[in-house]
């Protein structure tokens, strides 16, 4: 097993460019104090400004979409799932009470399996690239941060996708596309790979962070300030409020995604409990019983609807699944409601980008997997 450092690899991607020429420096120094209004800008920046206006328009559109209720598409049916608003808050309050009693240990360990990348195959089924990771985030800035990761291979995502894939003749290769990449790519079915270890020493972490306090403790400080938890979960809200007079309404989907992040990352018992309590009072979030996660475990899902940014008209539900007995977060996933934007070619009703949490919590063990 080899140790890799993803940051060193990223640094190595970028060549060292030549220093700017004396003429460029001199011209820039002259331009600095010129009056921007009379100065004709180079075409690149003009094009950029036009883009900015378009981007601003897109943001306005997104805000309007988030705020507007109107004609909502119907929620997709999930077999065996039933809506349950009454019991929901009780579960969240019980989860908060349990979270509060947990003890902070030396490491926060998060073991997950995920299919962060999904592709739509022409046969109408979803192909996913799956992976498993085991992250150990230390309580102390002096300890190493260790993450183990391995690919689980590429294949049909869910049982239904598996069936559709078989019906299509079980092809070993298919041409697919994803929202993040305009290219059509050819994928081949593959199996699990080897574990890789990613390690960042305490010294390197201090150097990167240039700080002496563990970042999660900084988050704790932020969360305990008035209104801080909202700022921690939804940082865009604060920034947007500064940019314009109109407060940004965070859609329920984003509320769930922000909450999932804090619930599965190193955070104090107090913060985790506060997140559960905050979720109990969130408008637009419903509860559905009997939702299956990526591992086939059944739980109660908090469901929040979101729209894709950019006006492509995509609508999806985010599900944050909780075990109603242990109150552990089991995972999160998206259910496509209306095609468009983020999941091109994926049919309404499909469950995509599933993440299952196998283990999340503080421990005094040393990193291993």
């Amino acid at each position: 097993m080899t140790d890799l450092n993803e940051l060193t690899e990223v640094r190595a991607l970028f060549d060292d460019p030549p220093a700017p020429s004396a003429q460029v420096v001199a011209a820039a120094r002259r331009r600095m104090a010129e009056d921007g209004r009379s100065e004709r800008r180079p075409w690149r920046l003009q094009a950029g400004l036009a883009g900015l206006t378009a981007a601003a328009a897109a943001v306005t559109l997104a805000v309007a979409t988030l705020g507007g209720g109107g004609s909502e598409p119907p929620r997709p049916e999930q077999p065996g799932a039933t809506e349950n608003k009454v019991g929901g808050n009780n579960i969240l309050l019980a989860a908060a009470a349990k979270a509060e009693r947990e003890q902070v240990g030396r490491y926060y360990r998060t073991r997950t399996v995920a299919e962060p990348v999904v592709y739509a195959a022409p046969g109408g089924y979803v192909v996913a690239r799956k992976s498993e990771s085991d992250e150990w985030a230390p309580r102390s800035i002096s300890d190493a941060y260790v993450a183990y990761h391995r690919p689980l291979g590429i294949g049909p995502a869910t049982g239904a996708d598996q069936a559709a894939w078989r019906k299509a003749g079980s092809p070993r290769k298919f041409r697919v596309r994803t929202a993040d990449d305009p290219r059509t790519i050819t994928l081949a079915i593959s199996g699990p790979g080897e574990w890789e270890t990613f390690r960042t020493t305490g010294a390197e972490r201090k150097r990167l962070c240039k700080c002496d306090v563990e970042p999660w403790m900084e988050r704790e400080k932020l969360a305990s300030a008035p209104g801080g938890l909202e700022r921690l979960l939804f940082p865009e809200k604060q920034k947007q409020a500064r940019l314009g007079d109109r407060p940004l309404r965070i859609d329920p989907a984003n509320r769930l995604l922000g909450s999932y992040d804090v619930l599965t990352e190193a955070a104090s018992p107090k913060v985790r409990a506060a997140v559960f309590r905050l979720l109990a009072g969130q408008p637009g979030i419903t509860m559905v019983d009997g939702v299956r996660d990526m591992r086939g475990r059944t739980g109660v899902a908090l469901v929040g609807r979101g729209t894709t940014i950019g006006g492509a008209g995509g609508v999806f539900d985010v599900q944050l699944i909780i075990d109603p007995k242990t109150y552990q977060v089991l995972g999160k996933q998206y259910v496509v409601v209306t095609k468009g934007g983020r999941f091109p070619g994926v049919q309404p009703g499909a469950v995509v980008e599933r993440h299952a949490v196998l283990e999340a919590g503080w421990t005094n063990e040393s990193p291993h997997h």
Partner: protein
Amino acid sequence: MTAPPDVAIPSPEGVDDASVIERSWHEPERFGAIFDAYFTEIHRYVARRLDVHVADDIAAETFHAAFRKRRTYDLTRGDARPWLYGIATNLIGRHRRDETRKYRALARLPIDGGATGHEDRVAARVSAQQQVRGPLADAVAGLPAKQRDVLLLVVLAELSYEEVAQALGVPFGTVCSRFNRARRKLREALGGTNPLRDEERTR
């Protein structure tokens, strides 16, 4: 992370960027010291993320904008670097398409001019690097812009989390989260680079 630290320009005793900028409110030419101290650094950062020619424009525009906004500078901040990187980051954000194109090119580019093919071992090493480089460049391209900004301000500009928070105007905790999320995605990309992987990309 083997890049040498940026050469610090020694400043006269007790003179930090904030006091230079404050003086430049009435004596604009003093702002030249800020330009001289940081222009090359900002230019290099932009050139790495985009290309040298775009960097000529954006670095110049960064200082043009900084100069116009110098009266709004927060004088409690002695170091102007985060502020300048913040302005540059905003300007880079207008060139997202150029940036994505660059990563796509990086993903396809042979390392160091490519393998000669005469020496099997060299070819194997280069091919191993290429295996890392391609998926990694794709992963950086696929990051949400906000995560990419944080990642590259830490890795390329070597700003501290606190400085990144200042540069982007977001809370410290947000910087940590975005950085961690970006790293996770990079690991996913690297983790997929084992030699057994059976996948091919076509344009």
